[in-house]
């Protein structure tokens, strides 16, 4: 009897439990922890499926088809290979260097047994993946022969010819990070790799270990000891990336190891599924002092090349004083009074200050001195502002991450020289041979201090140039200047650094399809046309904007127009203050 009762109880419990094994219909709210993966580069790519050669194709079409098919790297450029003769195709390796041409400009003409192709060049990608703008017309010869009754190319050229759209489809841009000479921040080196996601972690690490691009090399350092190589693939399993380095990595000292780890974390952080990093040297984990192993993707925030932290503030000048806008100026009439005044931060009696810049609690501004302009510096909050330099004219000053103040001074004779005022040190001239002839209107270093952007030229013909700050054991020099905007953008008024990879420029365009007048343009530091983005000016007053300022991390784009400073958030422009010379700075020291 007892056994029977126990059995009934067991069956009852079993039925109850069985009823629970269904889809839940209520219950607690579960908070999910989904990380925000900004700045990842490994989204799935789109590949092109170009058509192969058809029967009876004429030689110009064969060459066109070959150039079109060069965009598809599947199976080692199998489709492009099919446009070559059998013998040549067997041994042909697709070149790494690419010439980027403007799509509509390709012309192919047959004469004899050679097809001549003429294109308008837009840029180049070198064998290591660095992009540079170029222009002009190029022509290439493609000798053709009959191979098994069909026309085929006998000698392909040594560079791959790809249109801009093709490059956009078949390459992906990644940043490889190196350290600036003071080991404070990492500096991005943008390269273009094959867009296939296969082995992307390994290719990133390999590119990092092979050193910076030749353009950036004088301005940065790599913390990896000479001869360090990868001893195997970089595997990312369950979010943990394992980088196996050779024994040379063990020679690095403590600060080098920290920098090595930062370089790897920042470079591999661009992979979506990487959440941790483990570095092996000679098979054993590498000990990075001050950091637990393995590192996580959020480590090394202090190495951020966009040095500005979240308490970046806006500074401007009005009536000779340095001001800051009141908090949250709301749109509408109620805000007009606030916009009008702002908060006065500093002023020097009888010295109207212009072009204020703030960094690390220090303030620098230009003010009149007898016979010219003086550079005033001092602490932002209090204390005297001292004149550290006098000259006939000066470009607006700018700070870099090492607290150095940069400006271009013009002496009484009209000669221009680049001046750098280190923190607590003597101002020195920096040689800049490329700028010798020019008429430099502005020189602005990137926040990481490794590159500079300059506006050079006569009024109405000003252009933007990007150069690097070469550091040879403390001796600085500027060089490597090149244009980064296509020719159709003219009359640059102002420039600023948006983040470590992009600049903002106030330009006009000679494109007839667009409205006249200046507008802000976002462009890539290396001139890559794919990143160009026009900022819409709807809502701004009709006057021409004169100055522009930007900061990374979602801060508003600031434009000075018609005596007011306007800021744009999500495409909507709002007035912030009455004044000029807007700039971002960090008040904390």
């Amino acid at each position: 009897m007892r056994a029977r009762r126990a059995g009934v109880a067991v069956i009852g419990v079993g039925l109850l439990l069985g009823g629970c094994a269904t889809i839940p219909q209520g219950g607690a709210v579960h908070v999910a922890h989904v990380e925000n993966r900004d700045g990842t580069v490994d989204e799935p790519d789109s590949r092109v499926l170009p058509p192969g050669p058809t029967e009876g194709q004429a030689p110009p079409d064969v060459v066109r088809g070959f150039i079109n098919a060069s965009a598809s790297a599947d199976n080692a450029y199998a489709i492009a290979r099919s446009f070559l003769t059998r013998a040549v195709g067997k041994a042909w390796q697709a070149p790494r260097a690419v010439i980027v041409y403007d799509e509509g400009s390709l012309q192919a003409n047959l004469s004899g047994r050679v097809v001549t192709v003429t294109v308008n060049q837009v840029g180049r990608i070198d064998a290591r993946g660095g992009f540079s703008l170029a222009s002009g017309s190029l022509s290439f010869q493609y000798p053709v022969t009959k191979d098994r009754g069909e026309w085929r190319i006998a000698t392909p050229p040594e560079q791959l010819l790809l249109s801009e759209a093709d490059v956009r489809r078949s390459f992906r841009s990644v940043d490889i990070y190196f350290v600036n000479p003071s080991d404070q921040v990492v500096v991005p080196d943008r390269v273009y790799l094959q867009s296939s996601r296969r082995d992307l972690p390994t290719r990133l690490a390999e590119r990092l270990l092979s050193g910076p691009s030749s353009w950036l090399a004088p301005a940065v350092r790599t913390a990896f000891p000479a001869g360090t190589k990868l001893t195997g693939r970089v595997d990312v399993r369950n979010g943990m990336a394992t980088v196996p380095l050779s024994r040379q990595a063990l020679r690095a000292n403590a600060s080098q190891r920290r920098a090595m780890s930062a370089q790897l974390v920042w470079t591999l952080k661009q992979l979506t599924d990487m959440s941790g990093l483990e570095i092996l040297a000679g098979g054993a984990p590498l000990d990075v002092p001050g950091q637990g192993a393995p590192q996580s993707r959020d480590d090394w925030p202090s190495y951020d090349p966009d040095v500005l932290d979240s308490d970046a503030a806006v500074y401007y000048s009005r009536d000779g004083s340095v001001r800051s806008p009141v908090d949250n100026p709301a749109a509408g009439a109620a805000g007009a009074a606030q916009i009008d005044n702002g908060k006065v931060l500093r002023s020097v009696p009888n010295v109207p200050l212009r072009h204020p810049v703030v960094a690390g609690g220090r303030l620098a501004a230009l003010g009149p001195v007898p016979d010219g302009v003086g550079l005033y510096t001092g602490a932002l909050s209090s204390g005297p502002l001292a004149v550290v330099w006098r000259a006939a004219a000066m470009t607006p000053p700018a700070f870099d991450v090492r607290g150095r103040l940069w400006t271009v001074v013009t002496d009484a004779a009209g000669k221009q020289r680049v001046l750098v005022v280190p923190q607590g040190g003597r101002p020195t001239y920096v040689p800049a041979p490329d700028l010798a002839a020019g008429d430099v209107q502005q020189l602005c270093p990137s926040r990481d201090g490794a590159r500079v952007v300059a506006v050079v030229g006569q009024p109405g013909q000003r252009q933007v140039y990007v150069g690097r700050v070469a550091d040879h054991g403390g001796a600085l020099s500027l060089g490597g200047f090149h244009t980064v905007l296509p020719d159709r953008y003219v009359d640059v008024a102002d420039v600023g650094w948006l983040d470590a990879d992009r600049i903002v420029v106030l330009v006009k365009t000679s494109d007839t399809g667009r409205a006249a007048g200046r507008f802000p343009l976002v462009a890539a530091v290396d001139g890559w046309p794919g990143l160009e983005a026009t900022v819409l000016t709807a809502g701004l007053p009709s006057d021409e904007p004169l100055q522009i300022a930007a900061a990374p991390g979602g801060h508003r784009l600031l434009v000075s127009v018609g005596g007011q400073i306007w800021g744009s958030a999500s495409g909507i422009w709002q007035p912030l203050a009455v004044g000029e010379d807007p700039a971002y700075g960090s008040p904390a020291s």
Partner: protein
Amino acid sequence: MTLDVVPPVVSELSLVGRLAQRWRSSLQLRVAATTFLLSGVVVALLGLYLQQRLTDGLLSAKVTAALTELDAGVTKADATLGSAYASDPAETETIVDSLFEDLKRATPTGLYDVALITTSSTENGRISGEISDTSIPARLTASVGEGNKAYAYAPLRYLDGHTVEGLIAGGPVISTGVGPYQLYYFFPLDQEEATIALVRRVLLTVGAMLVVLVVGVAALVTHQVVTPVRQAARSAQRFATGLLEERMRVRGSDELAQLATSFNAMAASLQSHIQRLESLSRLQRRFVADVSHELRTPLTTVRMAADMLHQSRSQFDPEVARSAELLQTQLNRFELLLADLLEISRHDAGAVELDTEPVELQQLVRQVVDDVRVLAERRACDVVLDLPGDPVVVDADARRLGRVLRNLLGNALEHGAGQPVEVSLRAGDGCAAVSVRDRGPGLRPGEAGLVFNRFWRADPARSRHTGGTGLGLSIALEDTRLHGGWLQAWGEPGRGAVFRMTVPLRVGASFAASPLPLDPTETESTQTAPAAPQPRDPVAAVLPGQPGMPQ
């Protein structure tokens, strides 16, 4: 603890044979095996069905999702390319680019891949991710080319060579002036495969556990039934061996308790009957013993008087002298009968003792033959001896053995009908046998078992002439049994009879077979074949209590 069975003849069995024997002998094993088989089959069928339904369900959900995506994608592509007017190839490419980005953006990383395929020789197709366009099977391309929205299961091939089972759905895109284009969606089914594999594993585990559970339950239930049956069998066995107090334990009031109660009632009834019979038999024997003993006293007196009369018979009239002779003869007979009765009573009472000494059997046989020479001459029967060369020595009571042999030989000569009587002696494995064969009228079927009964006569008409008491063979049997031996008879009408005595070489030792055959007709084939423990002739019966019966 199973019921005992008659062990098979061959003592060594193969594995299959052992298994088959175990199968036959254990109800529990049969029930467990049958349950295992049946439940295994049912569970397997159910599991297969379940898995099939799950697979279908999973795949049909995937197919529905695939076709929905395909519909949405084709609609978008139709809208874009159907009204596209491109002035140059570059513009076409731009339009297709932006369309493809749109289509691709709808796919979060890894869920599926998209391909926009064209057969045009001037335009490029597009494909996303790392999948290779060779994954699209020709049959699907053909079907889509005819204007259908179709799907097919095919392995998805990737650029790095690995393949994953997948579902490909495709449809044609309406486009004017460009193309023609076909849109394909690639859905990897590795998640579904993993789910199905998980389900299969779970089903296998659960099914196996279920089968084991069912078999266990069946074995348990069978055990509950089989145990009382075994108990009943064991009690019956013990009862049969003579433990008449053996009873079964009664638990509860179910059918098994009823069995136990009935068994106990039967055992009690049998016990009281047997006890009554035994006491009756005891009474009877005691009566015979008492009577025989009481008769001795007057017999002695009568004997003495008869002797005196016999001595002086010459002084009487011829009739009186004849009467005196008759009296003497019959008194002799009476004395013999009484002696035999007393002897058999002693056997019945268990009051006999063996007086054993080493006896040389050949010598004993010769002596017995000598003893009956007179009878042999009178009957004109020859006695043929078949004795081995080596001496055969047994531990035995010479007197009793001699009596047995004399009785056998006497019977053979009496019933010999003048034919020679054969006496054989053989030594065997732990035993020795003497057989006496006559070629007289023999025994009728069934009489070989009755011949050892008390006062049984083969032919009632001959009783008065032979002078035998009717107890000779019974005494001979008891004497042989006392030695632990066998006394067996064989006979066929017209072919004579054989009486065989087999005794162990040492008293109390056991032996399995007799060295001499009981059935003489079988000696024609083999002379030395050991006789079976049980006689093969249906005429010759094995009497109860003789070795060879199940103990």
